[in-house]
């Protein structure tokens, strides 16, 4: 990895520099540096234990790094903030295992995710609003769940849950989406639709996708970062990293 200048370059949305995180003596993240431009979509791949999820945890405030910089936008230091603060800043996260509110309807899941005041004082007095209903209807179209809007999330198929969670992410109106294995457990057709959806989202927002499915990564057609043992092993187009001997050695070749 080339040495990065200290401080984010203007135009960068996310900037990680020299990040380290150790769990019980195990280096999960090892001097990781990564830059994401505004409006960019990036695919992150790597074998199990490469540090992909820990990286997501660090960006979203779930885990605090031992050392290193994590900067969002011009100068917001994410290491000093907790999860709700980072979420309000405009970073949305989709979990590996689809996590929706099982007892709520599809509609209510989206309603609770809609950008807005998050305080109990507000939600105690909140009433249905026309603007909210319009936004939700629009989101339902995007994630193709309009016909399922009154069903409880618990009763959705796995693929539908994945889509609902992406819809909830969009409802937050974030600037950056972190998407962890969005096509796990999806059919080929669903996978293709998801790639299409993410490319669509990428028109207005920046996206980081962690994925194992190479067909899907190819369908996204974006720059790929390969993680290995907590740091960046290779970066470039999928063809470029696939041809990289280091990558073949640790990941594709095994």
């Amino acid at each position: 990895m080339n040495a990065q200048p200290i401080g984010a370059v203007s135009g960068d949305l996310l900037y990680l520099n020299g990040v380290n995180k150790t769990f019980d003596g195990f280096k999960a993240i090892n001097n990781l540096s990564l830059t994401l431009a505004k409006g960019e979509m990036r695919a992150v791949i790597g074998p199990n234990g490469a540090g992909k999820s820990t990286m997501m945890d660090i960006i979203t405030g779930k885990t605090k790094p031992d050392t290193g910089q994590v900067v969002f936008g011009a100068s917001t230091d994410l290491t000093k903030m907790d999860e709700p603060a980072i979420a309000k800043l405009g970073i949305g996260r989709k979990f590996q295992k689809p996590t929706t509110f099982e007892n709520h309807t599809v509609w209510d899941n989206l309603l609770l995710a809609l950008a807005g005041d998050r305080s109990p004082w507000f939600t105690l007095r909140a009433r249905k609003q026309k603007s909210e209903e319009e936004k939700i209807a629009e989101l339902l179209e995007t994630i193709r769940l309009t016909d399922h809007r009154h069903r409880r999330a618990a009763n959705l198929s796995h693929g539908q849950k994945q889509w609902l969670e992406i819809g909830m992410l969009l409802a937050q109106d974030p600037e950056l989406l972190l998407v962890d294995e969005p096509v796990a457990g999806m059919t080929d057709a669903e996978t293709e639709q998801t790639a299409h959806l993410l490319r669509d989202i990428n028109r207005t927002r920046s996206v980081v996708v962690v994925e194992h499915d190479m067909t899907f990564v190819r369908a996204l057609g974006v720059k790929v970062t390969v993680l290995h043992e907590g740091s960046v092993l290779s970066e470039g187009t999928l063809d470029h990293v696939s041809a990289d001997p280091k990558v073949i050695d640790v990941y594709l070749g095994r």
Partner: protein
Amino acid sequence: MTRLSLTLTPVIIIGVAIILAILNLATPATSALHVSDFVVGLAGKYLCYALLALAVDLVWGFAGILTLGHAAFFALGGYCMGMYLTREIGARGVYANANLPDFMIFIGWKQLPWYWHGFAWFPFAMVMVLVVPAILAAVFGFLAFRSRVSGVYLSIITQALTYALLLAFFRNDMGFGGNNGMTDFKDIIGFPLNRSSTTTALMVISAIFTAGAFLFARWLVGSRYGQVLVAVRDAESRTRFLGYRPEYYKLVVWVLSAVIAGIGGALYVPQVGIINPGEFAPANSIEAVIWVAVGGRGTLSGAILGAVLVNFGKTILTGALPGAWLYALGGLFILVTLFLPKGIVGTFARRTGNDAALPTAHEKQGLAAIDGQTADLAEAGADIEDGEKTA
């Protein structure tokens, strides 16, 4: 969470209370229809338990907080009322001292401690009934939820909380009557407590408060706040990544629930005529959880039903076979866990297609509660493992 139960529950509660009141006051004691003071008193007591059960269901059913210490708030509300009733005795005590309660004279105190001032005035005491449990709940909840203590760990510290208060209130120098507590009350705002009209009025007031608390709880869980609360119960970390602060959501319902429990305790004391540290006993809090489990967790009306039914059973059984009650209670808990995991109302609502907002993930796993806790533990374990694996 049916619309039907929204109107039916308060109507039944208040209706039955009024019928009992009429049959008590308007029929001669010789009539076959006459309802004795004893029965009216029992009904009033059950309604106070129903308030405690509602409080437990709010936090357990809708926020996933398995509280094993809610009787502490009930007892604190009771003590506030007890302090008022004690001051109301005035010079009619054994020592005929209008300024100092008997038990203080007995332990040689010369003047009223500062924290007893104002309790002779009924409105002040009633405000304290709400404020004292609220303050304890706010401090405890703030510390516990901010530190992200949850699951079994939280249950254990709620149990420790009520046990600590039990020990504290046993001490004479706390100034609350030590292990004897407070009793021998004479009247409440001028109405003699031994008169059947007072007993009946207290029972009807308890019914009104129970119905009111039920409607308030329904409004609360039906609001968007309530939706977020259920979301916190089912997927707490998801709410955090959406920008919600679950600790504040839990804190609000926790404090409101403590206030409802406190009101229950305050109504309980004039009807049973005594308050002592025994009300803080950990077993009382656990019993309240069983009422809710029997009636149906997360249904609110089930909490009321469970409290009344289980306590009715307790009255019958302790009369017939005094030693058997604890075995029966334990057996009931096991039976409900095995065969009626959603409780009476939960099961019924499901049959009629009105599904209560119960945790689906736990549906098939016996009693949602205990399971929820173990599932949380397993999840926590898996999280740690995940961290290590990703690492």
